[in-house]
């Protein structure tokens, strides 16, 4: 069989790395001096330097985790430059952009004015990004929302950053989080004050400096009592980046009755068909439902990166708080993903839902790893987990590693898992009704992922649907 399927999934990544980077780069290697340099370059206050140094000292005592179900050559952390202020060589007009890339944007339905920015064209030539960003900011400021880069937040709102930074993911939490805490260069900060419902989806598209957030990105989102926000990270367009190692940290804090919805579409370079190159993505994402009746919901669509190590989690501390995790992870060629979530139930009557859809094609390996922990005081806690895997072809792998720890006898935990395969018979059935293989696969995949896509904001859902089709598009003829 399977030449058809193989062709189908062997669609090359068409965009490669087109952006040449000239940058202000620090010498390779990591030491306290490097960290002082980063901190000095960014004119940071003393407490933040201390935060970084503490993280670094902790990191030195830690070992790289070996438990994930991924294989890669050992990373030489001294062979990385930890500070770089990239100055992407701007293209002057859309005519200079790789037509293949424009075709991808079109297929994905990326709006016209965003295509320019994403392709690396000097956006002010095409449209006034400053005015867009400004209007956006003004609108948010009217209701008291702060949305800016984390560097700006350190300057403008140091008390808020200091209060919450590292409060969900402590500096010594894990190897990569410690590394990030020591060397992070930029990222996003978002603060929704008491009682405010954010009037729009916050998207990293429109955050100033979004192009320069670098390989150690740091995001902090705080929703005060009764506040709510929906935050979109990334986009379906392929991400250009020359850094191989990425170790981001995202922290979410929800106070009483606050509601944070965090959606990600990740389409980073995944390496070529032989598994060469591609980004290593080691991310720590965690939300703290600190207050009563608070809610944090993670939705992710992961299609890129050579290696993905990522477990967006919820710590359900406040009574009656709710954690949700909806995930689609697609791997192809030699991609490896070890991803899932942690739901830590501490408060009473806390509830969590996990819906994970893993799709493996080519020679890729896709693992779901999830922890559901019910603490001794979590009376009446409930969890429902559903982990479905789909295999395309016969050379890929899918694994599910559920960890369930229950320390309270009133808790109720359910786990369901299925594995299915797109078979030749299914494809033939579509064909016999006039439908070609590509459309058939796309339809099956979208059906498989429906429950997750329904959680995405509308326009993202449409793009994500197209993205999965595109990732599996092939030369079937």
């Amino acid at each position: 069989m399977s030449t058809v399927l193989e062709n189908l999934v062997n669609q090359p990544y068409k965009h490669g790395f087109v952006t040449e980077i000239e940058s202000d780069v620090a010498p390779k290697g990591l030491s306290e001096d490097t960290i002082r340099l980063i901190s000095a370059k960014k004119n940071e206050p003393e407490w933040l330097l201390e935060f970084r140094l503490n993280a670094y000292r902790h990191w030195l005592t830690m070992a790289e985790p070996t438990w994930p179900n991924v294989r890669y050559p050992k990373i030489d952390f001294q062979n990385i430059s930890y500070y770089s202020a990239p100055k992407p060589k701007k293209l002057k007009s859309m005519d200079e952009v790789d037509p293949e890339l424009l075709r991808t944007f079109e297929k994905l339905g990326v709006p016209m004015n965003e295509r320019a920015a994403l392709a690396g064209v000097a956006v002010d030539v095409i449209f006034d990004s400053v005015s867009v960003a400004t209007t956006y900011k003004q609108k948010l400021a009217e209701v008291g929302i702060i949305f800016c880069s984390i560097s700006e937040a350190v300057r403008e709102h140091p008390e808020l950053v200091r209060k919450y930074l590292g409060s969900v993911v402590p500096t010594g939490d894990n190897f990569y989080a410690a590394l990030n805490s020591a060397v992070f260069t930029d990222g996003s900060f978002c603060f929704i004050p008491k009682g405010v419902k954010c009037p729009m989806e916050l998207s990293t598209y429109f955050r100033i400096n979004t192009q320069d957030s670098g390989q150690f990105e740091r995001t902090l989102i705080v929703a005060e009592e009764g506040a709510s926000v929906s935050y979109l990270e990334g986009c379906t367009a392929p991400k250009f980046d020359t850094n191989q190692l990425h170790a981001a940290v995202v922290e979410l804090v929800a106070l009483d009755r606050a509601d944070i919805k965090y959606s990600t579409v990740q389409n980073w370079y995944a390496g070529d068909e032989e598994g060469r190159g591609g980004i290593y993505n080691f991310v720590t994402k965690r939300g703290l439902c600190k207050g009563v009746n608070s809610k944090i919901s993670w939705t992710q669509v992961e299609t890129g990166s050579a290696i993905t190590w990522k477990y967006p989690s919820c710590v359900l501390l406040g009574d009656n708080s709710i954690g949700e995790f909806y995930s689609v992870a697609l791997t192809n060629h030699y991609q490896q993903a070890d991803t899932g979530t942690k739901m830590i139930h501490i408060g009473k009557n806390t509830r969590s839902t996990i819906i994970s859809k893993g799709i493996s094609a080519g020679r890729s390996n896709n693992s779901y790893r999830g922890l559901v922990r019910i603490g001794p005081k979590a009376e009446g806690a409930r969890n429902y987990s559903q982990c479905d895997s789909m295999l395309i072809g016969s050379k890929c792998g899918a694994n599910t590693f559920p960890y369930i720890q229950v320390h309270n006898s009133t808790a109720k935990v359910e786990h369901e898992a299925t594995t299915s395969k797109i078979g030749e018979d299914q494809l033939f059935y579509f064909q016999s009704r006039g439908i070609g293989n590509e459309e058939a696969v796309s339809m099956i995949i979208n059906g498989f992922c429906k429950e997750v896509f329904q959680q995405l904001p509308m326009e993202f859902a449409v793009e994500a649907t197209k993205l999965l089709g595109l990732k599996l598009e092939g030369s079937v003829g």
Partner: protein
Amino acid sequence: MINANATVLLEVRGLRATVAGVEILKGIDLTVRAGEAHAIMGPNGSGKSTFAKALAGHPAYEVTSGEVLLEGKDLFALSPEERARAGVFLGFQYPVEIPGVSNSGFLRLAYNTVQGARGRDELDPLEFDDFVREKMKLLDMDPGFLDRSVNDGFSGGEKKRNEILQMALLEPKLAILDETDSGLDIDALRVVANGVNRLLTPANAVVLVTHYQRLLNYIVPDYVHVMEGGRIIKTGGKELALELETRGYDWVLEEYKGKTGAEV
């Protein structure tokens, strides 16, 4: 309805095919004209289903020799989906379940793809919904079918109705129905058979692959072919089916051996 002057829709000459290296079809000849209904009968393992799937282009069956023309054009030059668009329809013996894909979405995509290939107008979701509901009445189907996943959790009878619904939507020139009667109770059989009858016109044709005479009480064939050992060993009119019902297949085999001296 036999009309010797009608267009030849399907011409099969000396068709041989293998599955996993084993020869199953050993030289089949068959001519189907517009307006005709053919029944292919025969014992288990005689190659009936293989013949049906090979015509539709199932990848597991390798055609080793012979030719098949659809309206004079080489059928094997076409991919399975192109065959469907050109007017070949296979009603599956075991319709495939596709969890997660809604029946309405699937039916609409199939309909629009085939319409598009024939240069006809496609329907948007609302138009299609009206259109498909009309067709479903023909088969006494509950509109609730549209919201379910394709064949997923359908009973045997529901699956077969869904097949004929697809036939009604795609309006094939040549419908090959592989044991559409199996798994149907007598009421469902009548509904399905009536559905098929209403779709037959002087411009199209149907080939029924079946074990049993009972389907042929409802869809009356112009020709009945008996298949055995990968060949058609006897062809007759509708009365042949009745005779097979009472006498079984052995006498046909004996007759064939006597005539040809061949071992089957």
